């Protein structure tokens, strides 16, 4: 009897070790390729983790200076920034934009970003922010175009912002926010990842109060389709993308499908033709090494840009790999966004610079 228990335990242990090793992507590597000429953009050196493109004005806002699972606040020697990049001029230079009237300037380390165009045409930014000691909030800023600055509107703190990662604006004062886990320290996060008992999820803020839409899962990047009816959620640790029907009036979400990618897709961008773009981490073991010691220049990890074209029923997707790098050029890609009718591409990274590429290859075939 005891022997049987031991054998079962041993079998479980073996299969657990096996699964964990596969989760860390041993026996995998990237093979470099680019869709055209690529150049680094001057400006963001300490990350370009998320990008939101304002089509109406041909500009991109880029978050930089992320702090993540920071056990030691003194290690965060960099500043958080919001950069603006003009998508019409090929300057290869992004401009850091001043933020006025922040409550806590030192504690502004932006993560996910989204925008909303208000009725008067002004742009409102919604930003997931962490402080140096990894406290979380959502900061709302209005873009003053003539003065080229961001004005602080509101800072929201809520117990449901457990460990926020990304955000999608759904109105002047409402948004969806993803929690990518529950743990607040590196060790606890390691335990959460290894056990598979995830405490992240999805929260909707309607302008007054928050409500849970998804719980006990991993939700990293999130984005809505152009018609705002479909929500895409990155279950990054499971290497899948969840597709959900979103009904804003009823505040309800319904699962449609889950696309297996075999790569850790981070943030999302929806292009003009409703293709989903993502920056991914194809080899998790190297990503963990790099992200764990972000300022070490000799550590880097692979980057991958995928474009997903969904079937009309949203149950399957065709994947095209637009860009792939071993990390020496672009390390740990987190977001990819296209512009200029799909002829150009921006690739953002978790803790490094921003890359601007031409797209000279066919993507529809």
């Amino acid at each position: 009897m005891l022997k049987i228990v031991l054998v079962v335990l041993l079998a479980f242990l073996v299969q657990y070790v096996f699964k964990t090793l596969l989760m860390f992507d041993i026996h995998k590597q990237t093979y470099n390729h680019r869709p055209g000429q690529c150049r680094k953009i001057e400006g963001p050196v300490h990350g370009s983790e998320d990008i939101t493109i304002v089509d109406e004005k041909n500009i991109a806002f880029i978050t930089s200076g992320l702090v993540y699972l920071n056990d030691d606040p003194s290690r965060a020697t960099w500043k958080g920034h919001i950069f603006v990049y003009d998508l019409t001029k090929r300057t290869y230079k992004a401009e850091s934009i001043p933020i006025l009237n922040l409550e806590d300037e030192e504690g502004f380390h932006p993560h996910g970003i989204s925008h909303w165009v208000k009725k008067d045409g002004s742009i409102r930014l919604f930003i997931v922010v962490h402080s140096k000691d990894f406290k979380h909030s959502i900061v709302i800023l209005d873009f003053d175009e003539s003065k080229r600055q961001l004005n602080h509107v509101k800072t929201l703190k809520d117990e449901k912002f457990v460990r926020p990662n990304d955000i999608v604006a759904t109105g002047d004062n409402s948004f969806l926010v993803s929690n990518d886990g529950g743990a607040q320290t590196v060790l606890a996060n390691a335990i959460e990842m290894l056990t598979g008992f995830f405490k992240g999820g999805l929260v909707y803020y309607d302008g007054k109060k928050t409500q849970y839409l998804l719980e006990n899962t991993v939700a990293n990047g999130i984005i809505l389709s152009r018609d705002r009816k479909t929500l895409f959620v990155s279950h990054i640790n499971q290497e899948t993308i969840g597709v959900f029907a979103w009904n804003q009036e009823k505040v309800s979400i319904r699962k449609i499908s889950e696309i297996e990618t075999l790569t850790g897709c981070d943030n999302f961008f929806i292009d003009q033709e409703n293709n989903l773009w993502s920056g991914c981490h194809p080899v998790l073991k190297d990503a963990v090494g790099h992200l764990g010691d972000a300022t070490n220049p000799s550590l880097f990890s692979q980057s991958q840009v995928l474009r997903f074209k969904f079937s009309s029923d949203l149950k399957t997707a065709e994947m095209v790999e637009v860009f792939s790098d071993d990390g020496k050029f672009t390390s740990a890609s987190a977001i990819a966004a296209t512009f200029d009718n799909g002829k150009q591409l921006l690739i953002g990274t978790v803790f490094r610079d921003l890359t601007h590429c031409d797209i000279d290859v066919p993507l529809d075939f």
Partner: protein
Amino acid sequence: MLLKALFVLLLGLSVQFVFKTLLMMDINKRVYNHRPGECRKVEGPSQGSEDFEVIDEKRIAFISSGVVYLPNSQSDVTWKGEIYLYDLTKRTYKAELIPILNLEDEEGFYPHGLSHWVMNDGTIRLFVVVHSKTFKHSVVILDYDDRKQHLNHVKTIRDDTFIRPNDIVATGENSFLLSNDGGAQTELGNMWEVISGFYRGGIVYFDGNKSHYLMENHVANGISLSRDGNTLFVSHINQETIGVYSWNQEKISLKKISEIETLTGCDNFYIDKDNHMWTGCHPVTKDVLAHFGNRSDPYLYGPSQVLRITFSKGFEKAEMVEVLADDGRLVSASTIAFPFDDGKQVLIGTVGRHPVHCDVAVPLSLY
């Protein structure tokens, strides 16, 4: 007590063996499609384009088609073995079947690896690895008649050392290097060989009169010489590595320089004018095995990958650029690729399907 320890050891070994085998099958891998430019299938060789031989001087490529590999029975082989010619200057997307005169065994001609030698009078001599329907092996030497556009049989060579030949590199008018990719002659035997890791392939040098073993108890798939003829590249496809050896033809000696890990099953090689290596690979072993098991089934296909590999000086390391990756619907089980038109075009060959001709609109020199 001893028995228990032995049991635990045996259990550990078998767990580790299963783990390694699953990784070898690439269970945690997939292909993400991308193309270097517009791509089109080349008409003509529909039953395979396993190897190409480029004649720079004449801007043509020979294509071997219809390879027979570890056939279960003769009746499974419903196609013909052929050699095609493709004009690299015209973008016809159509390869021409070229007649072969005076073959000893026309029915038993299933070409595999190809190589060529330009003779003193400018004639092109082809060296072809050939299998029969019953998987008997030989090397066939053919001379190309440029004017009449056909191939004349010169000689057929059979030898005990041609155990299971795969690829060939001509080193003279009557001499060549030949790879054996294993020892087993049946599918089941090959499975045992692959799983156990006791390989019986290797490299053979034929000097015009007799053959010499250069390497034994190995897997040697594609082989190619550097442009200067001093370096031999060997695909150890089952180990997912490329072996680099210095080759001395006068002394008939091979010396190992390095072994490049690719984590993909690279098949045949082409060395371009700038000494970059181009190769067609099988990135997901489990899918390509399913395709090979029933090659005529159009619903089964294998993922493809084209890599351009640039070696460091001294051949210790290599940089890899992935030129194309495909889940198999466009290019199924790629084996070979080569650039032409100053690198602006690429031709990709497959084990059992047509070749694909692509434009190259992307930068390949990334560092």
